[in-house]
Each structure stands twice: as C-alpha cells, then as structure tokens.
C-alpha cells in the first residue's frame, strides 16, 4: 500500500497556480525526492502533505486514509523544517520528546524512544544542550530525531541541507541516506539541488511551474527524460534535432568522444571547433561549436581526451546513436 497518495491535488493562490492537479504515489520505505527550481510547487506539495495548507481540489491519502482536511497534528507524518524550527526554550531532549508527549506516551516508553532517536542521529551526549548551543549540522540532526521519534509513516524534509556549508552538506547527505536505510521510514525530500536528489533518491519527481514533469528512478530521469525541461534540469545536455527534422534527441556530454578520427561504423558525428576548456579536476568540460554553428558540450576524463586539445582545435565529436534518447516533449 502507498504511504502517501496524492490524487489530482491542486492549489491556487489568487490567480497564481502554485500546483496543477498532481497525482503521485510514494511507497513504504522509499526515499523520494521532489526536485525543481524555486517556485515550482515542491514546497507547496510538502505543505499540503503535512497539512499546513489545504488543496482546492483532489484528495490526500496517508496510509490509505483520506486526510485531505485533517489538521497537521492529526497526520501520521512529521516535517524537518528548512531552518529546523527547534524550540529555543527547550533542551535537545525535550525537543525530541515533544511529539511523544503530545501523544501522552507513557514515561518509560517515552524515555526509551527519545534515547533511541538520539542514538540514531548520534547525539545522545548533547541531550541537555539548548538549540542555540549547537552547530548547524547538530541542529539538523536534532530536527531529524524530533521527527523520527514519532515513528511516522513518512518524514518530510524541506531543503534540509540548504543551510549547511558544502562539505558538511556532503557528509550530512551520506548520513541522511544511512539513517533512512537504518530506520526504514519513508523519506520525502524537497530540494532544488539535483546532485542531492540524484544521489539520495530511490525515485524522484521533477516539478516545473506547478506541473509534474516526470517521475522515475534517478537513472531513468537522467538517461531517458521525457522532456527537454527534465533533460536540462538534471544535468548538462546536448539537444540535437532528429535526422528527420521532427523532434529532438538528448545526448549527455559524457557520451561524446572527441578526437581526430571521423565516426566509424554505426556511429554518428559532427565536426566542431573547441571554444572553451573548463578543467574540473577529475574531468574536463569541453565547450565546442559545430560546423553548422551548433553549441556542444563534452565531458571526459583528462586521460581520455586528446593530448594536444586546446581552444581552437578542430576535431570530430562522435557518439553511438544508442546512447542518445528521443525526447517526447522537445525544446524549451
């Protein structure tokens, strides 16, 4: 059974459509991401699931029960807020105990559960601290423990890593994934960071301008996007016209081979000139322009690229047509 099911859920604010009718199912134990640029409706969706907002139409089912009109405190989901929203007047322990206490959990059970939740996020030694005495990463973990302790059907995370600095973000990303695997609770993550969504999710949904573009595994969405919007949002992309002239094909930059030799049997190719080389450490991003004035991007490891490659070099870009993918909804 789906833990979360949205059926034709929509939300308007005045004349602004924040969310067009959206249908989405999230299964038990899934790490699911809602990905999109700001204003795409992903936070609206999360707030609708949490109950801070009511949809104009559609139904929201949580664990199979229609809870479209239920207030937030009657829903079996818990939210990790973007700024964590920890209670400043309560200790870490009391913050985590807030949910169970709301449900009048017996004392012994309460103490055991709070202790466990703090263990999961590896913070038991900071239980007596106040939130303002914690670092950003620690606050984040308290917020997570405060949600997990309720053993919810799903934990909703609103851009949880956005406020952290890049190194910490990477560490917390791994930790978030490890914790989700450990507890086995459904996580629904809202993010505008495609790397985050691609590396964490079992499945993700891409939203754009209040509309659901596509749902699938990270690999499906990256390699077989339905639309140009999804293709370009999930990574850099070469969008080439179909040989027939109708429609477009996606060619990811890492599928391009650069070199002096022309395309061989079963390959396709374009002659192009190097316009820019961007050294990125392990890889190099090569920006080219074809004879027919088409911009191209290729990404490859330094070891695979021709030695004498420099701006102005004339060479062939080759690819295997099997590695390209036809878009159903081309052109931005």
């Amino acid at each position, binding site marked *: 059974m789906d833990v979360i099911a949205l059926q034709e859920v929509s939300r308007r604010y005045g004349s602004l459509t924040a969310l067009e009718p959206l249908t989405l199912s999230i299964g038990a134990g899934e790490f699911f991401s809602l990905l999109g640029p700001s204003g795409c409706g992903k936070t609206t969706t999360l707030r609708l699931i949490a*109950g801070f907002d009511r949809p104009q139409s559609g139904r929201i089912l949580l664990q199979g029960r229609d809870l479209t009109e239920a207030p*937030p405190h009657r829903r079996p989901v818990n939210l990790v807020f973007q700024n964590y929203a920890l209670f400043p007047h309560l200790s870490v322990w009391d913050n985590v105990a807030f949910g169970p206490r709301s449900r009048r959990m017996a004392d012994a059970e309460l103490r055991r559960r709070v202790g466990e939740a703090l263990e999961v996020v590896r913070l038991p030694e900071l239980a007596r601290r106040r939130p303002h005495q914690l670092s950003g990463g620690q606050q984040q973990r308290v917020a997570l423990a405060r949600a997990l302790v309720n053993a919810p059907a799903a934990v909703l995370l609103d851009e949880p890593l956005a406020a952290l600095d890049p190194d910490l973000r990477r560490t917390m990303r791994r930790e978030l994934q490890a914790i989700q695997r450990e507890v086995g609770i459904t996580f629904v993550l809202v993010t505008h960071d495609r790397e985050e969504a691609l590396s964490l999710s079992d499945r993700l949904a891409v939203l754009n301008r209040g509309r659901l573009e596509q749902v699938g595994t990270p690999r499906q969405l990256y390699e077989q996007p339905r639309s140009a919007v999804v293709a370009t949002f999930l990574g850099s992309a070469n969008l080439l016209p179909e040989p027939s002239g109708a429609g477009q094909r996606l060619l990811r930059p890492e599928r391009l081979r650069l070199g002096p030799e022309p395309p061989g049997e079963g390959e396709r190719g374009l002659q192009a000139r190097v316009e820019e080389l961007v050294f990125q450490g392990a890889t190099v991003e090569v920006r080219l322009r074809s004879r027919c004035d088409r911009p191209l991007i290729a990404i490859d490891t330094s070891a695979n690229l021709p030695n004498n490659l420099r701006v102005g070099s004339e060479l062939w870009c080759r690819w295997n047509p099997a590695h390209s993918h036809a878009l159903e909804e081309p052109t931005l």
Partner: protein
Amino acid sequence: MRRARRQPWRRWWPWALLAPGLLWLIGLYGLPLLALVPLSLSEPVSRFGLETVFTFHWSNYREVLQSHGPILLRSFGYALLATGIGLVLAYPLALAIRFRGGRWQPLLIGLVVLPSLSSYLVRAISWTSLLGDSGPVLALVHRLGLSGLLTTLGVLQDGRLLNTPASVILGLTTNLLPFLLLPLVVALQRIDKRLLEAAADLHAGPLRCFTQVVWPLSRPGLVAGLLLSLIPAAGDVVNPQFLGGPNQRMIANTIENLLLVQLQAPRAAALTLVLMALISLAVVLQLRGRGLEELPLP
C-alpha cells in the same frame, strides 16, 4: 607605536558615550535620592517649617511602618489587582494583534497607545465625570439592573462608583494597559510562526501549542510588562486622588501629605525609601533566575 596610541581611546570611548546620560542620572537622580537617607534619619526643627536636623532618628522608620503599613499593603494590593486585570485584558489582545492583526497590526497597537497620548491627569478627571454619581456609567448600571450584583462584588459602594477601590483600580488599569501590552506584542512577534507549525506537526493541538510554545516564549515580555506596570501603579498618586476617596489613598498620597501638609519631611523620606526597598525586592524576586537580556524592552 600607532597601535599603542590608539589603545586608550578604544578603552575610553564607551565611557565617553555613557558620560552624558550617566552624569544626568547621578546628578539629578542618584544624589537627591542619596540625600533622602540622612533626611530620613532627621527630625523637624519645628512643627511649622521644613527645616530638619540630623539626629540618627531611626524611630522615623518604626513610626512610618506602624502608622502607614496598611496603606502600603493597600497600595501593593491595588497595583497587583490592576496589573492582574490588565494582564487578563492585554494577553488575549496581544495574541489577537500578533496572530490575527495582519496588516492592521500597527493601527491596532496605535489604538491601544492612543489614550496614553493625552495627559494622564486629564484621563483621571474624565473618569470622574464618567463614573460620577450623575454620570452615564452609573445610569447604565441602573438601567441594566446590575446594581445588586455590583454591590455584592464590592464595585458599587453606598450606591457610588466613584471614590471606591474599584474606580481607583479601573484608573490604574487604564494607565498601565499599554505598558503591559507593548512588551507582550513585541515578545509574541518574536515567536517564529514556524515554531507553531512545528508544534502542530509534532501532534500538539492548539491548547498544547499555546501552553508549551507560545506562553513560555512570551514570558520575557510578560515579565517586562509586569515590571513596567506594577512599579508605576504601586507609586501612583493621581488615580487615588481623583478617583478614590479618603479610604482609597495610596502610599504616594501619604508621602505627599506627610511632606506638604504635615511638614514631616523626614518621615516622608523614610516612607519613600521603604517603598523603594519593597519595589526593588519585588523586582529582584521577579528577575531571579533569568537574565536581564531576556527582557525585550520596547
């Protein structure tokens, strides 16, 4: 070299900025206050003048506490009652302004503060005509048949609204309402709405949300409001004089009477110092255990 030369200035500039205010307070407030101490231990030279002579006259204090103890108690009683009633009025009002006020917030706050812009003497006198024996409030009370109930409650005394404890407390409450309300609104405005969402998300209903989040986080404003209203109320002189009769006199009226009518400056000084000591004690008790930085003084 340069660094060494800059150092003294760095050390002194906060004092330089403090100096004007500090000198003002010391010269015009601290020193006169200090002068009350020897005065309170003096005796009048004659019964017909204000000249005194310093004689270590400790019995001023005993005398003052013996004859004015009840009035002292009454003053604090009135002040506490007025503050309590003010709180019952101000807290829901502050909640409404904060959470339902929307863009009308500044206007609503302005409306509450508006009466304070008139002289508080004028306000007290207006109350006398409103509450007077032929005033509209008493007429309304009779029209509504509330006189029996209000007499039982002690609001009406001998058929009068004016010159009763109730009228004095009413006057005090009117005066202190803005001082209670403003710190409360400020404290409530400081509460991040996301904390309320977090509480709701963590399965707290509206009541638990209030008792566990809103109330504790508004407490600094509450303490500030209580101090800002309790202290002036306990030392109020105008309301008891205009709205109360001889039996509703408060401690400030007594001090005024001692000084200007009975020409007992030493006893007036002693009573002033006793009042200050009691109020300071109350403040210390209120603030004990919490830092002053918690006070969001407006």
